[in-house]
């Protein structure tokens, strides 16, 4: 049997879903929209059944593109997801508004179970209701009380599922059938339903308005014009401190683990193409996926807590007015801020934005925010071309440049958002109308499930694209036309003997000369005329191509090309080599102009296949990631060119 789980947003629907299915759930897609379809297995009457979690909606009629799925599936009996029974979660502390949606679904004539949630809150609010009154109002519905937030009521809900009542054409609205297609009809229907609900609730509910609740006291501070922003800024600071402090440890571990796995595999396998593919293509590719997991998990851990407590809606509330002129929405703040750590969770967090246009703009500009993968590139280049000086008495020039690059990311993101606001056309009128739930303590089970779900989505859906691209990049760097790479290797070995190089120096020279003759090396050389106006040579060209995998790969590639060991944090040999690098005419390559131009290039360019894979996953098409790749590429080229012209 298929059971659809429905309900208004903020009713504890997710808690009910997690309570019923536990870890036996998986994420899939609803056809045509970007909302995830969560399906869980439940058991009653000794049979297995499917519970499908639908997006939270306030009405049967869709008001945003993501709400369409409820209407679409429930009004099409032939749909493969058409349920045999519906379960609607109803917030007991807010019956009036919740019953509008419930009464609409009731009139669909499907077997229906009402799960009353938040019953603990109604006690606190001294707002009592009479369940038997509700039973009289909806005689064909099975009504159960559950407090999923404290994990009670599972047995009762399953009991209700197994003894569901058959429908015999009892409608809430007499002879008023659903699926009014015109807006006026829907307005009229909503008013008729509310009138009947309000009349009935007078008997069912006792309304004793609470004095000043906990929520409104906290709101005096959290949306305060000064303290509100200060508190938000403080929370952000703490979150980022945690991410930088704690993500680095598992990331280093993953890095090391995959490197050892790769060398262990190559030691036990016979030499050959297949071993190379495995140890140099696939294993590092998997490592490249796994390395993002700590940041994604930590960011969504914090976002889920902020959401569970109800604080996130206050952030939206105080930021909406500021973001709106830019074509963004109060809800864009969290995705953009997350992108300072990593654009991948940022793009994934944009899913909460219900307005399609505002969501697309947020996704399109998120990768312009300076992510942590740019830091190794920036620090390397700053160390090479920016003198370590104190300016204006107190400011370190290198630090100032790094700050400038972060500011450049933020300003360009907002500026591009402004331009996209004019370009992207939409039929829907944007609205906010956001429910601000009361403050609650977070449910750790829900937080854990969110983290797990986001990591799974990233690994399965985006991971495939990332793995494919990294294998392609590996093949391009490992193979070259004809036997030119082998000749280069022989030449390198001869040179090494002549110069009396040590074993490690000689293998670095071999790697460098092989890379130069590989397909990527050839590509790097052939784009030299294009990147020459920016002040780059073919060596930078090669690294630009390899660092499409991820920005920080630039540093490792440069180390290979300059035939120095990649010794991790300090990179001193590489910095020295790059500082000494000269053009054929004897002038240095890494001048201030070329270095600054390269930094600007990295500030703008979409040098991250993982982000592209996630954008593809989130927008369900290749169109948006390709537009993003294109516009950021143009911005990077022009920005770098202008920087080079001004400084040289």
């Amino acid at each position, binding site marked *: 049997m298929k059971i659809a789980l429905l309900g208004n947003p903020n009713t504890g629907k997710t808690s009910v879903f997690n309570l019923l299915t536990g870890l036996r759930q998986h994420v899939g897609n609803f056809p045509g929209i970007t909302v995830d379809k969560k399906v869980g297995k439940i058991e009653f009457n000794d049979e297995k059944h499917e519970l499908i979690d639908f997006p939270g909606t306030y009405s049967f009629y869709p008001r945003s593109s993501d709400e369409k799925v409820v209407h679409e599936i429930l009004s099409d009996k032939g749909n493969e997801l058409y349920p045999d029974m519906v379960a609607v979660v109803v917030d007991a502390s807010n019956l009036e508004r919740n019953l509008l949606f419930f009464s609409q679904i009731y009139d669909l004539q499907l077997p229906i179970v009402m799960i009353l949630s938040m019953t603990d809150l109604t006690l606190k609010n001294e707002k009592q209701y009479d369940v038997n009154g509700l039973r009289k109002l909806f005689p064909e519905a099975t009504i159960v009380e559950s407090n999923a937030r404290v994990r009670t009521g599972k047995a009762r809900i399953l009991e209700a599922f197994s003894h569901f009542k058959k429908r015999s054409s009892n409608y809430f609205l007499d002879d008023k059938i659903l699926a009014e297609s015109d807006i006026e009809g829907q307005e009229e229907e909503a008013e008729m339903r509310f009138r009947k609900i309000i009349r009935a609730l007078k008997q069912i509910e006792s309304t004793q308005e609470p004095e000043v609740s906990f*929520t409104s006291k906290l709101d005096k501070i959290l949306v305060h014009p000064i303290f509100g*922003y200060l508190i938000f800024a403080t929370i952000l600071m703490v979150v980022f401190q945690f991410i930088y402090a704690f993500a680095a440890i598992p990331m280093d571990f993953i890095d090391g683990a995959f490197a050892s796995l790769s060398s262990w595999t190559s030691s036990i396998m016979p030499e050959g193409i297949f071993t190379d593919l495995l140890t140099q293509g696939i294993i590092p590719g998997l490592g490249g996926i796994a390395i993002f997991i700590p940041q994604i998990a930590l960011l969504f851990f914090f976002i889920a807590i902020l959401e569970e407590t109800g604080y996130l809606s206050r952030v939206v509330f105080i930021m909406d007015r500021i973001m709106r002129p830019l074509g963004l929405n109060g809800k864009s703040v969290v995705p953009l801020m997350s992108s300072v750590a990593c654009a991948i969770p940022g793009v994934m967090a944009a899913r909460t934005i219900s307005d399609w246009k505002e969501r697309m703009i947020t996704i399109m500009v998120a990768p312009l925010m300076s992510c942590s993968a740019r830091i190794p590139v920036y620090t390397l280049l700053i160390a090479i071309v920016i003198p370590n000086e104190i300016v204006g008495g107190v400011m370190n020039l290198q630090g100032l440049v790094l700050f400038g690059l972060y500011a450049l990311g933020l300003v360009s993101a907002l500026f591009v958002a402004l331009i996209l606001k004019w370009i992207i056309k939409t039929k829907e009128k944007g609205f906010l109308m956001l429910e601000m739930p009361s403050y609650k303590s977070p449910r750790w089970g829900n937080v854990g499930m969110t983290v797990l779900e986001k990591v799974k989505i990233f690994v399965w859906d985006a991971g495939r694209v990332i793995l494919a691209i990294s294998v392609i990049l590996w093949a391009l760097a490992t193979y070259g036309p004809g036997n030119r790479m082998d000749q280069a290797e022989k030449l390198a070995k001869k040179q090494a003997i002549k110069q009396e190089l040590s074993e490690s120096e000689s293998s670095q020279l071999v790697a460098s000369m092989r890379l130069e003759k590989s397909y990527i090396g050839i590509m790097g050389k052939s784009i030299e005329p294009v990147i020459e106006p920016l002040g780059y040579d073919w060596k930078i060209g090669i690294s630009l191509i390899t660092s499409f995998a991820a920005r920080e790969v630039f540093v490792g590639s440069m180390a290979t090309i300059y035939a120095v060991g990649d010794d991790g944090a300090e990179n001193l040999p590489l910095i020295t080599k790059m500082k000494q690098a000269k053009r054929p005419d004897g002038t240095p390559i890494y001048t201030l102009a070329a270095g600054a131009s390269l930094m600007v290039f990295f500030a703008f360019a979409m040098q991250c296949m993982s982000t592209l894979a996630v954008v593809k996953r989130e927008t369900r098409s290749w169109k948006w990631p390709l537009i993003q790749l294109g516009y950021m590429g143009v911005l990077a080229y022009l920005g770098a060119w202008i920087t080079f012209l001004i400084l040289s």
Partner: protein
Amino acid sequence: MKTIANGTDVVVNKITASTLKVKLLEMGIMEGKQLKVLFRAPFGDPIAVDVGGYILSLRKDEAELIEVEQIPSVV
């Protein structure tokens, strides 16, 4: 409603016809409904309104569609 001071109880007189009217209705705002203007975001926009026990935030141009009358406070 966008000019009503914070902390005021109001009753809805009329909702201006607009594409957003049906959404307002579905969020529980209809003629005759009592609302309370709670607080505003910095810059006075959006506005937080108590709609029968839950807090709804409305942008100024959304609040503008709602014509309200102040309920004289009971002394």
